């Protein structure tokens, strides 16, 4: 038996790994948000206290998978909730490869089908993986233990908008005394609607539309007044993020992080304090 000692040591190692997982691998009691570094596109993984995972958008390609590999333990292949804000390639492409590798508890979307060819690939993958799907819109809510997610937009009218960016799901998350705002690719129009309807005051903001000139308006930002804002942006030809948006964000008193410079940004809410970790 040439390999017997090798197999024996492999088994011992496997035991150590397993028991380590059993003893230390339990869910963390605090809120973590990873703004994944997936290039030009959006993808945010939030792990609620108690371990439930919410993945908002999937980025433009398979870099989502390598980012998840770095963030999640190797044997964790389950994501409880996947939320697609709106059917654009830089938001949903990554989900297609995600569904091949991960089991997804539920797929949440706005009900507006995409008009690009790749949309068919996504719907095929969803039905192949037998993933349950649900359409959510304004005033729908998700509860888990002491965490709440409420959907602020779109309503029945907005979701039909000819401007696809206005149909994006805007979600608000309360957890561990922290409020987070996910603003998809919305522009001034939707921002103003929301500023009129809700108390937007937030601690963490996923900046709208990769720091576009036509998002993150002054009125909206003074309502939201985030402590930490993260711009999800990579190499692109649109000029994202624009100096205009960045200036407005800094003037609102927020610290601004961006994936293209800071890499993956991890915001941990511990005992009412926000800790920001950057991978670069």
């Amino acid at each position: 038996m040439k390999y017997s000692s090798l197999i024996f040591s492999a088994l011992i190692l496997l035991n150590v790994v397993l028991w380590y997982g059993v003893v230390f691998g339990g869910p963390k009691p605090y809120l973590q948000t990873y703004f994944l570094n997936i290039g030009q596109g959006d993808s945010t993984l939030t792990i609620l206290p108690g371990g439930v995972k919410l993945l908002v958008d999937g980025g433009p390609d398979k870099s989502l998978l390598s980012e998840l590999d770095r963030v999640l333990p190797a044997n964790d292949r389950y994501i409880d909730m996947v939320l697609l804000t709106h059917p654009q390639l830089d938001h949903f492409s990554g989900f297609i490869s995600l569904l091949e590798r991960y089991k997804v508890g539920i797929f949440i979307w706005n009900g507006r089908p995409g008009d690009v060819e790749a949309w068919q690939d996504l719907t095929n993958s969803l039905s192949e993986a037998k993933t349950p799907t649900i359409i959510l819109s304004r005033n729908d809510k998700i509860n888990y233990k002491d965490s709440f997610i409420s959907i602020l937009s779109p309503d029945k009218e907005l979701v039909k908008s000819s401007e696809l960016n206005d149909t994006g799901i805007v979600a608000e998350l309360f957890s561990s005394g922290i409020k987070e705002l996910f603003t998809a690719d919305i522009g001034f129009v939707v921002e103003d609607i929301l500023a009129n309807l809700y108390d937007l005051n937030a601690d963490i903001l996923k900046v709208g539309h990769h720091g576009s000139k036509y998002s993150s308006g002054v009125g909206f930002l003074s309502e939201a007044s985030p402590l930490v804002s993260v711009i999800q942006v990579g190499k692109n030809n649109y000029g994202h993020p624009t100096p205009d948006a960045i200036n407005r964000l800094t003037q609102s008193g927020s610290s601004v992080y961006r994936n293209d410079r800071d890499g993956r940004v991890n915001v941990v809410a511990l005992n009412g304090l926000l800790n920001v970790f950057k991978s670069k």
Partner: protein
Amino acid sequence: MKLHDAAFYLAAFFIIGIGAASLNINLWLFLISIPFIVWYVLKSKYTGGILLKWACLFLITAFIGYFYYNFHTAINKEYLILDESFTFQGAVYKEPFHGLDSQAVDIRLKTPYKGNVRIYTSLYPEYHYGDFIEVNGKIIKSDSSDLNISLSPKVNLVSSNNGSSAKVFLFSFKSKLVGNLGRILPGEQSAFMVGILFGERSGFSKEFTEALQKSGTTHLVALSGYNISIIAVALATLLSYFFKRSKAFWLTVFFIITFVLMTGGEESVVRAAIMGIIFLISERSSRLYSLRNAITLTAAIMLLFNPELLVFSVGFQLSFAALLGIIYLRPLIEKVTKFKGGGSFLGWRENLLQTTSAQLATLPILITTFGRFSFSGILANVLLLEFMPLTMFLGFMGALTGLFSYHLSLIIGWVTNILLSYEIFIINLFGSYLT
């Protein structure tokens, strides 16, 4: 002359003919040898030697090789427009490579154009073998190979499911296995495993590809003949428990061919498979397995399919150089240095000899074409080679088990992961830090 010698010389002269044709050596130079033949003929009246007939036959074989090359290039001459935007249609003739942020789709052009083009397009929608597509864009020559490529043109699907159903089945079976590996291994590890098993490198990051090159370990993901002969022997032994000898043989051959088709018929896989089959045949007919014959015949058969490989494919040259190195340089090195292979811790002596001789033999080609050579690669290979068969075995079992039970395959995946992580660590160590 014995039959196996005759086969060797016939194949060798055929290869010489092809080589002459691809290097544009004039046909008439061959005719210089005619006086010698005539002389031989005259002489034969006295000796009646059979050798003479063979000599004529060999010369004719060289001519056949020469003509075959020209004939092959003439009928396969491509016809397409370079460096200009136009619309063309073509059939996807093998399963595209789905990379990290783009896919590479190989198509065979439809008339009025002729030739093959590799199209780089966005990751989605995914195209598959058997699709027929319309493309609008520019075709250019690739910098790094002799491929025609087209970078992010406009692509429209015209129709799908035009391919052979056997191939469709094999490709979907393979992608199922690949998918299973993805579910039980972390991303980097599963990409490497897919590389080792199927020779597919599309899942590799740029850094990892570079690390493989710099550490001299790219051959691990190129399905070497070594890998396939392991599979062939294991299969044949396994099948011989269940079937009669001849049936087991044919089944093994069948599975090897299936495997080659599954991997899309990459050159290195074909070479390895032919070697494996010849190995099995010689074992079956209880004749001594002559490596010299096996190599020349393999080369001749491969050149029959594509005579341009000999001079224009670095991959072809590298793999044969490595093989020749292991067979002919190794005994020489053993003799000169008095360094013997055989039993040692993790077989390091055996692996050191193997690697050194292969690296030495490929050295001239590597330096002239890539301008670099890695000496630390010898050490990297010694540290890796012993683990490859076990890794292959476990990975394959993991992928297969995944078809029946996810949880069982997950356990196999954990064990495989340990080996793979070690291998990736060594490759990165020698590829990025120690060069």
